[in-house]
Each structure stands twice: as structure tokens, then as C-alpha cells.
């Protein structure tokens, strides 16, 4: 990677070179101005691309966040399997979205039926970019990278909700369909310029397209899967404490950090004053909403249960993040804090009621990403002048209907073919031994 060897010969604007032609008149000068202008376009393209890549890297990091969060909230006997599911689903998503997902989501469909295609085309040539008059302003490969990590996020949401009882291979089989087809289709409807986008449905970074989507798929799975053995016995709810709360906290911090890329990158451009201000506003609001969510959830849980429940506080922060994701740009930081705080209150309530409804969600994914995702989408109608409640509700309905129904079918088929739940025996001794043949913490005594 030695610098001197890699320097391209192509010559860009060089002040030195230019001093020579100071004397020369109009035309020559004009040419220099053109070459200079082209250099500036090159620079802007490079900056926007770099901003994309950094944002994408931060979102990729969220995969680690989900893995740690979930590994911390399950029991030790199911830890290896949840870790494996998380890192494997990220890999599956990376491959499936490359093979076909991206083309479905950003191909040319008719608004409802998406187009289809495979793999990635060549990147923009310099000539095209210069000729595009600003229309083409960053690498399509960087766009793919930024998009692919989003799919993984949606799928990560599922793994938490079905934890501690779903078969590894059934889960990965679902991941193939989810990341290659289910997610891209609804993604096309909104971000691909499909009919939802036409309807004026607003979803800045994916409270709906990513979070509600993931939660809807998870719900379908959970309903077909049933609760963990021992969770609801003779009508009573049994708490099943997570085995490693430092991991869960680390996971939340990772997600919080990654979210700056998730929302910040979704502005899609930073190379001028307005855009730079916009991205900055998104960063500030994203942070404010998370803080608001955590504080609200913490106080609420304390008031309700008499204890400062760390796991609720963590879910509160995530709720704040999910809530602001649909519109992190237009609200003021104060409003963003409030939007997040409401998300925090909602998530605590949702977790308790979903539990009472005997829907077993070990990590609270349905509440955080589903219920609060809906809140975030509705909030747009109030925080963004261009937002309309009708459009938002339509979007919510469409995304849920599509993802839930298709997921339900896929889960159902998987259940019929290979089964989606481990045997009672295996569940008792833990999925780690039966599915992975390993203990997560072999040296530490367990209950």
C-alpha cells in the first residue's frame, strides 16, 4: 500500500502548474477554471462517499450491539446460540442483499411490483459524475454498503424475540427469505420510490421500513413459536432474568453509537452547508431522543415497580432512538427529547402488557421496535410540517400487513418442513449444547 506507488498519474488542479499560465488570457484561464471546477466536484463526491462509508461502518457496528444486548438478556445456556444467530444473520443478510435484495429494493418496478436483478453493476464513471450536474454525487458501492447494513439491523430484531427456543437452522432459513425478499419489497415501496413514497409516507431512516418491519416478522415468529418453557405456568408470569447485564449494557451503548450512522447517514449528503447542518441536527436529535427515552423509562419503571430496572432503562434508550428515527431532522432538540421520552414511557408499558398477554419476548424487541416504531411514525405527522397522519397510518398498515403476513407464511412453512422449535429436552438443557455443542461459559457454575 506504499503511497508513492499508488499515486495515479492523472493530474488534478495544481496551483504550481497554474502559476505558469498566470499571464495567459481568457480562454486558457477559463479552461483552468473548468478543470478546477471538476476537481471540486471530485472532492464533493469523495466527501459524500466517505461520509456514507463511515456511516455504514457505524451501522455495521450495530450488529455487534444486538448480539451483546441479546446475549446479555438470555440465560447462559442459550448464549452461544444467540451469538451465533446474530453474527450468522448478519452474514446471510450481507450475501442475500448482494445477490438480489438490493436490486429488488432499488430496481425499476411499477411502484407496487418491484423490479428484479442480481449482483451489483459498475460504479459511476468520473465522466458520468461530471456530466450529471450534481445529480450523481457519491459512489453507488458506498450506497450499497450503507443499505446492506440496514437489512441486517431489521433481521437482528427478530433474533431477540425468538431467542432461547427457536431452532438455529430454521431461523437462518427465515433470514434468507427476509433479507432477500420480504424486507427489500417494502423497502422498495418507500425508499425505492414505490407507492408508499408517492403517498407522502415519511420515514427518514426507518422506524417503519427497518424497525417495524423487523418487529412484524418477529411477532409472526413468536406467535407460531409459543413462549419459553416455564415462562407462563398456571397463569402466572415467571421472570427469566438475563444472565449478563454488563453485556446488555454494552450492547445498548454500541447501538446508541451506531445510530448516529443509522440516522446521520440517512440524510444521504453532507457536502454543503445546508446538508452539513442537517446531518448535525440529526446527530443532536438522535442523542437527545435516546437520552429522553432512557430517563423517562427509568423514572417510570422506578415509580411503577419501586426499583430502578436497568433493563427497562436500556430499552428506554433504544425506544428513544427508534422513535426519533422516522424524523430526526425537523424537530428541535427539545422536541426530539420529548419524542424520545414518550417512546420511553410507551416501551415500559408495552413490555409489561405484551408479557401479560403471554407473548414471550425475551429482550423486548416487539415493544422497542414494533410499538415504539409505530409511535415514531405517527410522531412525524406532528414534528414534520410535510407529514400527514393518514399517510403515516397507511404506511404503518402496509408495512405491517406485508411483513407480518409473508413472514407468517414463511415461518409456517418452515414449521411444517423442519420444525422451528427445539425439543423440550433441548430447551431444558439449553440450545447451546444441543445446537452448537458448546457452553458459553464452561467454567462458571450455573443454576
Amino acid at each position, binding site marked *: 500500500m506504499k503511497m508513492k506507488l499508488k499515486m495515479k498519474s492523472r493530474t488534478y488542479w495544481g496551483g504550481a502548474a497554474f502559476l505558469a499560465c498566470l499571464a495567459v488570457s481568457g480562454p486558457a484561464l477559463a479552461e483552468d477554471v473548468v478543470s478546477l471546477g471538476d476537481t471540486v466536484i471530485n472532492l464533493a463526491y469523495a466527501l459524500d462517499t466517505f461520509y456514507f462509508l463511515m456511516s455504514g461502518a457505524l451501522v455495521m457496528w450495530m450488529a455487534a450491539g444486538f448480539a451483546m444486548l441479546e446475549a446479555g438478556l438470555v440465560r447462559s445456556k442459550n448464549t452461544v446460540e444467540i451469538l451465533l444467530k446474530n453474527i450468522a444473520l448478519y452474514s446471510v443478510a450481507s450475501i442475500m442483499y448482494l445477490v438480489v435484495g438490493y436490486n429488488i429494493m432499488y430496481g425499476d418496478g411499477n411502484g407496487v411490483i418491484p423490479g428484479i436483478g442480481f449482483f451489483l453493476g459498475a460504479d459511476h464513471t468520473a465522466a458520468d459524475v461530471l456530466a450529471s450536474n450534481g445529480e450523481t454525487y457519491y459512489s453507488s458501492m458506498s450506497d450499497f454498503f450503507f443499505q446492506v447494513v440496514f437489512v441486517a439491523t431489521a433481521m437482528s430484531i427478530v433474533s431477540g424475540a425468538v431467542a432461547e427456543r427457536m431452532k438455529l437452522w430454521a431461523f437462518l432459513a427465515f433470514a434468507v427469505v427476509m433479507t432477500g425478499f420480504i424486507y427489500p419489497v417494502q423497502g422498495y415501496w418507500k425508499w425505492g420510490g414505490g407507492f408508499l413514497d408517492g403517498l407522502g409516507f415519511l420515514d427518514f431512516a426507518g422506524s417503519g421500513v427497518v424497525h417495524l418491519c423487523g418487529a412484524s416478522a418477529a411477532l409472526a415468529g413468536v406467535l407460531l413459536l409459543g413462549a419459553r418453557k416455564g415462562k407462563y405456568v398456571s397463569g402466572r408470569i415467571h421472570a427469566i432474568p438475563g444472565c449478563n447485564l454488563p453485556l446488555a449494557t454494552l450492547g445498548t451503548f454500541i447501538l446508541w453509537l451506531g445510530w448516529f450512522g443509522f440516522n446521520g447517514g440517512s440524510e444521504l449528503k453532507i457536502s454543503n452547508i445546508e446538508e452539513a447542518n442537517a446531518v448535525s441536527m440529526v446527530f443532536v436529535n438522535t442523542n437527545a431522543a435516546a437520552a429522553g427515552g432512557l430517563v423517562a423509562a427509568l423514572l417510570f419503571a422506578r415509580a411503577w415497580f419501586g426499583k430502578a430496572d436497568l433493563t427497562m432503562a436500556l430499552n428506554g434508550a433504544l425506544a428513544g432512538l427508534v422513535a426519533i428515527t422516522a424524523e430526526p431532522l425537523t424537530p428541535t432538540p427539545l422536541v426530539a427529547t420529548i419524542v424520545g421520552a414518550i417512546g420511553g414511557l410507551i416501551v415500559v408499558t408495552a413490555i409489561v402488557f405484551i408479557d401479560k398477554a403471554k407473548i414471550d419476548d425475551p429482550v423486548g424487541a416487539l415493544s422497542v421496535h414494533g410499538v415504539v416504531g409505530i409511535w415514531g411514525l405517527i410522531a412525524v405527522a406532528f414534528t414534520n410540517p410535510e407529514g400527514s397522519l393518514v399517510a403515516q397510518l397507511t404506511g404503518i398498515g402496509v408495512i405491517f400487513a406485508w411483513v407480518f403476513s409473508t413472514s407468517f407464511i414463511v415461518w409456517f412453512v418452515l414449521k411444517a418442513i423442519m420444525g422451528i422449535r427445539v425439543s423440550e429436552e433441548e430447551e*431444558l438443557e439449553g440450545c447451546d*449444547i444441543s445446537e452448537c*455443542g*458448546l*457452553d458459553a461459559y464452561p467454567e462458571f*457454575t*450455573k*443454576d
Partner: protein
Amino acid sequence: MKKIEAIIKPFKLESVKEALTDIGITGMTVSEVKGYGRQKGHKEVYRGAEYNVEFNPKTKIELVVAGEIADKVVEAIRNAANSGKIGDGKIFILPVEDVMRIRTGERGKEAI
């Protein structure tokens, strides 16, 4: 007085505890142990190398009771812990000469 030591499967602890409280047992001490016996352990593979985990996780319940109720206690434990599967465990009955409750200094049956 007798000391009863029962080695049971961990997930049976809850029902055994209930069975014992049902017959009026108010105290017991529990610990985690590893058991070797007819029930064979399971195979694990770690990075290609197979190995046997020969010890199975078990739970040990120790309780001291008045001699006359010992059999009742043993029966209660057996009924609650029995799943008919190999590895259900064992119950041992040992003689106890005396007991003291630390808090009060009481001795003998009163101390149980």
C-alpha cells in the same frame, strides 16, 4: 435425628421444595454438584476435537429432620423428583447426633 441428602436433577428442585413444604418442612440447604453415574454425560465438539462431559449437573438437597418423619420426607422427595429416567438421583439417610440453632442456641429437635 436424621440427615437426608438427596441428589436430584436441577429442574426438579422447585417441585421437591414444594413437596417438602407441603409436609411441613421449614428448612433445607441446597447446593450445586456434578454427578457421575449410570446416566452417561454428553459429547461436545470444540474446534473439531470431541470430548465427553462425563459429569451431569445435579442439585443436592440436605436437610436434617426428626428421625420419626425421615421416611415420610424420603417418600416426599422421591415422588417429587422421580421422572423414571436414568439420572433421577439418590437419597441418602445419615445419623445426626445433635443440632444447634445458631441464633438461639437451642439444641436437638427444637433447633431443626
